[in-house]
């Protein structure tokens, strides 16, 4: 069977690419510390020598639109073009091409459907920065095939927080039951407190540092029940109007199985807190 060698849950900051590729003299003062943290985080994936990556993210109204909006969608395609015009324009993100792993996509869809998740699928999917930011930070050589798993954290009505946890647990079982000798990592990106298009946007730190500290505690300790007891679709508006992206962290906590993270790090930036977590489900020496 396949081996789940690493589970990574990360924020996705679209400005990391531009910040980290500026010439040293033009970098803002927070850039060096940010790059150091990201490189340490990257090593938690590199050392586990993955063969294939399941990438959990959320399309930001790029390809998935209100005339036909899935709640959870799995990509099944041989390739994925990546990044869109407005991400190039606003964030300076490059156009990318990622390889797909159709066999694992097919397994994910079949098993997910059979476990009670009516997953949508796409055979021609262009992925956005919720997937490419973690590729840029964690696997910049972009040499591994992926299976994209998109969630709706963006266009109400949204699935309940507990549903994200349940899907994460199912993804864990689905990877564990994949008849393959490959080493799989599941990488998901979301947000802590975040405000976009609101009065608290682009402040000196994230809109709700108290929520951020709590959230980092839940994730680092694998406290799924604690998180679910305090978080609801209604309450997530309060820390910032884009904080429903935290539900992608809940999904990743489900994949990780409610255990303490082996690596937990964070960085207060203007506008938002960055946070990076890694679990080794079969041990750090798997």
């Amino acid at each position, binding site marked *: 069977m396949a081996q789940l060698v690493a589970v990574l849950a990360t924020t996705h900051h679209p400005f990391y690419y531009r910040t980290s590729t500026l010439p040293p003299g033009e970098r803002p003062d927070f850039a060096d510390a940010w790059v150091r943290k990201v490189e340490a985080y990257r090593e938690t994936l590199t050392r586990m020598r993955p063969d294939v990556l399941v990438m959990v993210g959320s399309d*930001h*109204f*790029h390809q998935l*639109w*209100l*005339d036909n909006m899935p709640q959870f969608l799995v990509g099944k395609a041989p390739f994925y073009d990546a990044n*869109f*015009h*407005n991400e190039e*324009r*606003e964030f300076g993100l490059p156009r990318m091409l990622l390889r797909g792993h159709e066999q694992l996509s097919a397994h994910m869809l079949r098993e997910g459907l059979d476990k009670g998740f009516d997953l949508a699928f796409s055979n021609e999917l262009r992925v956005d920065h919720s997937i490419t930011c973690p590729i840029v930070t964690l696997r910049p050589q972009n040499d591994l095939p992926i299976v994209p798993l998109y969630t709706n954290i*963006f*266009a*109400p*009505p949204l699935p309940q927080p507990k549903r994200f946890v349940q899907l994460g647990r199912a993804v864990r079982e689905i990877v564990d039951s994949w008849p393959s000798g490959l080493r799989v990592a599941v990488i998901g990106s979301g947000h802590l407190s975040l405000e*976009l*298009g*609101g*009065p*608290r*946007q*682009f*402040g000196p730190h994230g809109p709700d540092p108290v929520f951020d500290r709590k959230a980092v505690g839940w994730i680092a300790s694998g406290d799924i029940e604690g998180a679910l007891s305090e978080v609801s679709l209604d309450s997530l*508006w*309060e820390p910032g*109007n*884009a904080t429903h992206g935290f539900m992608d962290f809940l999904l990743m906590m489900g994949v990780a199985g409610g255990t303490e993270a082996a690596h937990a790090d964070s960085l207060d930036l*203007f506008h938002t807190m960055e946070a990076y977590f890694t679990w080794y489900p079969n041990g750090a020496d798997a």
Partner: protein
Amino acid sequence: MSRYLLDKFLYDVDRDPELTEAYRADPAALVERWERERMRVLTGVPGDDTTWTRLTDEERGALVAHDYVAIQELGGHPFLTLTLFIALFERDHAEPLGFQREYARRLAHWSLPYPDIAT
């Protein structure tokens, strides 16, 4: 209320650089053109265009006025509104994030709950 249609305008104009620039240059003309040429497009097959979509006068007025506060107060999706208006006006601010911070200031009168964005 046609939040969906407001969102469709923002989404459509944001992702096409020609439309974005036309909206910056002459919002009234672009809104009129969008209602005529693009508002009803669904599958891309002209015979299958939608027949019933209409902007209200209030929505049209907010779009023509480039009034992002009004657009959001009518329920326009905050991500779509912010993204498009950054494309339109960030260039007019010398200071990095100057436009984004002005945007936040213009929404400073908001308190929770923010306008409903469900479509």
